[in-house]
């Protein structure tokens, strides 16, 4: 391999045959089609490989290895997430940047508000939001799906859930996009988000309402009320975890459907298929490469790893192994183990409602020409825009 040693990191304990020439952040092929490129990389790589880019890190490609790593906090820690955030002036990441057992009571607190029973109460509001965004597309011949649906829908729902007033939508959307884009102004935008959340927490402390922040203020963890900094941290993690991820899941899902008229026709003929479709498309879109750090030296699946090594769990590869399952709810789109996405029930409901509403208002749809590559690799892989050609509902069958 022709790596330049000044920019590429290969520590001595990494066996040379495990090193592959793949930059999981900036690979050119991923910009055109993330999933094709990931399949190609996975097929040519050892099950556990080392990428010398981005500081150097392990990549786990197999479902079994990813499941093991994400269930083993003794060797695969998440604490670096909190430390990293705090170094950048952000809050600690509760519960995302914690390891068990300290993690457990915080996780249970969050799950209390994101379990299926509580999420079901949000369905009416989610349906209203979807209807408002998608119904206007019924008469249009084209749309940019990210801007029209996939961005505004989760942001509106998150704001309502937290108790943020809807008139702040435009500012909040711009801030959210800046924070997740990791640009020069990300720090500024994070500070403003924390200011907005801080004001919300102060307002609900003074006068509780029927929203998540008010409810969390009344909770206890380890026998004590939740402090202001801790509550801010939870809210910030919910914000980071719940917005662009849903946007990505919606956009990748609609992209697959746009490329597969037969799948569209099946769903249109049988909308009862939509809950299964949600998981089928999530599996094919699994866009989060969940990161961990080795906590103590270990030999994992025959590979020597040292404390401090970075690990990327390549969840798309693990969810789409050759010869593996293609249906069913067990995939790695929400990660796995004790940090498995706490928002998965909310995400599934948002996706289900979005697809139901979409198929009610929109007929056959297909990708519109887009000369520029729109996909981006990284820890949360995403697609910047999705241009579609639309036909009115009821005319799809004739096309």
């Amino acid at each position, binding site marked *: 391999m022709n790596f330049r040693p000044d920019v590429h990191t290969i520590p001595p304990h990494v066996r040379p045959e495990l090193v592959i020439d793949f930059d999981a952040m900036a690979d050119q092929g991923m910009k055109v089609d993330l999933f094709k490129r990931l399949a190609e990389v996975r097929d040519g790589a050892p099950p556990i490989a080392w990428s010398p880019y981005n500081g150097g890190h392990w990549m786990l490609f197999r479902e079994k290895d990813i499941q093991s790593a994400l*269930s083993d906090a003794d060797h695969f820690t998440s604490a670096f997430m909190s430390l990293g955030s705090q170094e950048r002036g952000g809050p600690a990441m509760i519960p995302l940047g914690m390891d068990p057992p300290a993690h457990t*009571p915080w996780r*249970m607190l969050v799950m*209390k508000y994101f*379990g299926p029973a509580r999420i079901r109460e949000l369905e009416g509001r989610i349906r209203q939001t979807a209807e408002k965004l998608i119904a206007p597309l019924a008469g249009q011949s084209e749309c940019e799906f990210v801007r029209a649906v996939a961005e505004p829908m989760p942001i509106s729902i998150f704001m309502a859930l937290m108790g943020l007033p809807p008139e702040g939508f435009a500012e909040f959307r711009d801030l959210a996009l800046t924070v997740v884009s990791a640009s020069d102004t990300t720090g500024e935008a994070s500070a403003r988000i924390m200011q907005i959340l801080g004001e919300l927490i102060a307002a609900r402390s003074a006068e509780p309402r029927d929203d998540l922040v008010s409810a969390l203020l009344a909770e206890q963890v380890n026998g004590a009320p939740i402090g202001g900094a801790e509550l801010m941290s939870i809210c910030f993690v919910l914000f980071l975890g719940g917005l662009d991820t849903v946007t990505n899941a919606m956009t990748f899902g609609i992209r697959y459907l746009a490329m597969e008229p037969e799948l569209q026709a099946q769903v249109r003929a049988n909308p009862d298929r939509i809950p299964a479709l949600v998981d089928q498309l999530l599996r094919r879109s699994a866009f989060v490469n969940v990161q961990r750090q080795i906590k103590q030296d270990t030999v994992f699946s025959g590979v020597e790893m040292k404390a401090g090594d970075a690990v990327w769990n390549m969840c798309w590869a693990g969810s789409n192994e050759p010869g593996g399952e293609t249906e069913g709810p067990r995939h790695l789109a929400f990660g796995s*183990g004790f*940090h498995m996405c706490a928002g998965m029930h909310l995400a599934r409901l948002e996706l289900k409602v979005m697809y139901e509403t979409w198929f009610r208002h929109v007929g056959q749809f297909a990708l519109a020409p887009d000369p520029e590559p729109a996909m981006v690799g990284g820890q949360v892989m995403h697609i910047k825009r999705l241009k579609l050609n639309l036909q009115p509902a009821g005319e799809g069958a004739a096309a």
Partner: protein
Amino acid sequence: MIRVTFVAHDGTTREVAGEAGQSLMALAVATGTPGIDGDCGGSMACGTCHVVIAPEWQERVGPASEYEACLLEVTLDPGPNSRLGCQVVLSAALDGLVVHTPASQKV
């Protein structure tokens, strides 16, 4: 071999055999038994392996732990005999166990 009968919400029964030390969730997943998802793989993080223990087995299976009870509370239809399948570990004493699976683990 420890025999377990899963009763689906529509009354369909399915008897499967597991090993001591295996969890009910792992047994259901390994045998392709429908009605249990077990998304998080047994870390008590997702609440998608909710089962209801048949009343005559409740005492031998025992109650949920504090954190398990938190998760059970937010499953769709929790009851007094509810447990998370990933937290019920098979042993010889549970040979013949009967558990019911809910209509859905998800919204």
